Every structure is written in structure tokens, then in C-alpha cells.
């Protein structure tokens, strides 16, 4: 089964079950679950985790429907439970989507930064000041900003926002891309063999994962014994 079809099947099943709890769960979940063994599904880690999540939710709902139905069940509680679950699930999907969108936005920014805008500022002084803009400075905002920027600098906690300890994705991807650029075809093993420490190898691996997500390179491993082949992604 095609990966996207599988995910959309699972989603619509989950929505059906949540909408109508008397729905007879005829669908054989085990069949769906077994399709997880399909090779192309396993390759895509993101989709894989989404599938696990969807399937787990389905199993849980199905298990619940198999329990002996007590006449006295408080149906309001029951509906509330399903609503909460829906909400939690929607939140999770929403969050996941935002995280992917963030990467997509960054990818667009990176693409756009390939074009650099002209700004001959030193000529504007002799020529004419940029005609359409007159700068105003709000005294209060100026003071607040001054306070904030110095507090940030002088206090250790204030430095948190700079996130120095997190790896700089852009830098890591840049160095990976320049390596991939140098040779048309390479492999993860080849790139990793050129570093001195295991930390650097891990860094290359993480950069590779990000570069794949951002759509800059394609990586392929035919089976476990083969090298992980890397090449530049020329598709739009």
C-alpha cells in the first residue's frame, strides 16, 4: 500500500471511530498494522512515527469497544473522554505540522538568500537619503530595548536565548553541502571516514538528516550491508 494512502486511511478510520462510537470496527486493524513491514514505509521515519501513533489510537478505541458495555455507563463522561482524545490528537498533529512548516520556511529563506540585495549605503549619503523613509525612534521602546539587550548580555540566564549549546543547523548543512558539492556521488561512510572524532561523525549524520528533510540531498541505502549513498537533490 502506498504510504500516503495508508496514513489517510488510518486518519479517516480514527475520525470515523471518534465520531461514532457504535461503529462496528469491522476493519481488520491487524492487516493495516502488518503493512508497516512494507519496505518503503519503514524508510520514512517521520511517517512511520505518525503511523504508529494513529494505529495505537485505533487499537485503543477498538479495545474499548470490545469491552462489555455497561448499561449504566455515564455517556457524558465517555463523550468527554473521546473529545479530549480528539483534542489531544489534533494538538499533536498541529504541533508536528508546525515543526515541519518551520523547516519548510527555513528552506525557503535559505533559497531566497541565494539572491543578495544591493545596498550601496555609502553612496546614499552623497546622492540622496533614501527618499521614502523617515526614521522615528520611540524613546520608551529605545530604553526598553537598551535595557533588554544589556541585561541579556550581562546576565548568564539572559544568554539562554542565544542557544549557543544547540548545534547550528545552517552551518552543519553548509559544510555537508560543500562536501557533497565537491564530489557528485558520495556516501555517509566516506564523509564519516574523514573526521577525527565520533562526535564529528554524529554531527555529520545529524546534518545529513536535516539536509534530507530540507530537501537539499537525497540519500539511499538499498539494504543494511550497503553504503548510504548521498547525492544532491536537483529537483525543485
Amino acid at each position: 500500500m502506498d504510504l500516503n494512502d495508508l496514513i489517510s486511511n488510518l486518519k479517516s478510520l480514527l475520525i470515523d471511530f471518534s465520531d461514532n462510537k457504535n461503529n462496528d470496527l469491522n476493519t481488520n486493524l491487524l492487516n493495516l498494522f502488518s503493512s508497516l513491514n512494507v519496505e518503503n514505509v519503514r524508510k520514512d521515519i517521520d511517517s512511520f512515527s505518525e503511523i504508529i501513533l494513529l494505529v495505537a489510537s485505533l487499537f485503543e478505541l477498538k479495545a474499548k469497544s470490545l469491552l462489555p458495555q455497561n448499561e449504566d455507563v455515564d455517556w457524558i463522561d465517555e463523550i468527554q473522554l473521546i473529545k479530549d482524545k480528539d483534542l489531544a490528537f489534533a494538538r499533536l498533529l498541529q504541533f508536528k505540522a508546525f515543526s515541519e512548516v518551520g523547516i519548510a520556511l527555513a528552506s525557503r529563506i535559505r533559497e531566497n538568500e541565494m539572491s543578495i540585495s544591493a545596498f550601496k549605503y555609502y553612496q546614499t549619503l552623497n546622492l540622496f537619503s533614501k527618499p521614502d523613509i523617515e526614521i522615528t525612534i520611540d524613546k520608551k521602546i529605545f530604553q526598553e530595548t537598551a535595557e533588554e539587550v544589556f541585561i541579556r548580555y550581562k546576565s548568564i540566564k539572559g544568554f539562554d536565548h542565544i542557544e549557543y549549546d544547540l548545534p547550528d543547523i545552517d552551518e552543519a548543512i553548509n559544510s555537508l553541502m560543500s562536501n557533497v558539492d565537491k564530489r557528485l556521488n558520495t556516501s555517509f561512510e566516506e564523509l564519516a571516514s574523514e573526521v577525527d572524532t565520533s562526535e564529528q561523525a554524529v554531527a555529520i549524520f545529524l546534518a545529513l538528516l536535516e539536509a534530507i528533510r530540507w530537501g537539499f540531498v537525497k540519500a539511499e541505502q538499498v539494504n543494511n550491508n550497503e553504503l548510504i549513498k548521498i547525492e544532491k537533490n536537483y529537483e525543485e
Partner: protein
Amino acid sequence: MKNKKIITATLLVSDGPVQNSYFEELLEIDGNKLFKLFDEINNDLTTLGFGFYLRFDSMKSDLVTVNDIPKYLDSIKPPSVLKGLSTPALETLAIIAYEQPVTKLKVSEIRGVESESSIKTLESRGLVYKSGELDVPGSPILYSTTDDFLEKTGFESLNDLPTIGEYFSSPSEEE
């Protein structure tokens, strides 16, 4: 001829894009005439094999380098706005872009983690700004994306952001 001269000189020295309305008023021409001039300038630049072109849309224009020679410009190009941004910061950027104007609390709620530091990072990069206050007790600050964000992502307006599925509340439903 004179118009072409003024447009190209202005774009060379301008800090970022210039609004079309500025040229329309300055040169006393309408939008169609302006686009014709833009096209003309671009044709010339392409034909002669120049390394820059006039990028424009319905709102604004700018002179920018062509993007097939970036590696020759490595040593002179300004650092990327993405430099030092982590995945959490990008996530926060996406949430502010879609949910704006939005409070820090709401962003943190969606992400499930405290998001103050990410928002500050984005603010100091000029990608988001404090756009107002929510009219509830405590007057929490509302954040929105800047014009620079649109420029950097190449979207003409926020309406151009792609829709992302049924699970999203549209920006107008915010709070």
C-alpha cells in the same frame, strides 16, 4: 530613458525593496507602465548576461543577484539570518506565522514547552516583533512576523502562506 535611470539608481542604493507606489508617484506613471519598465530592464540584464536582475511583484521591486553563482559570492555575502537558529526556534517561527497575532503563552501551549527564549531569538533576528497587546488582564504581548520575514521567505503577503490541513485554526479564529 530617464525613468529607467532613476529606477535603477534608486534600487542600487536602497536598503531592501522599494514600493511600486513610490516609483509610480515619483515618475508619474501607472502600474502597467512601471511593470513594462521592470520587464524591459530585466530583458536587458538577461540578454547581456549580467549577474543580477530586478526582482519584483505587485507590491515592490529590488535589484538582487542571480542565484546560480552563490559560491562565487561566499566571501562577500552577509551572514544568513538562519545562522544560529535551532529547530525549536524555527518551530516557533512557524507558529507565530500561522497564528499571529499570538501571545507567548499560546505559542508555549502549542509547542508544549516554554518558548520565551525562542521568541527573543527570532525578535533579535528581526523575523518577529511585538505587534500589540491582548486586551485581557495582564495585557500579554502579541507577536507577529515582520516585513523582513515575508521578504526572506519570498511570500508577497501572509495570505500566501500555504494552508496546512484541517487541524489548523485559521488566523482569524485566534484567541
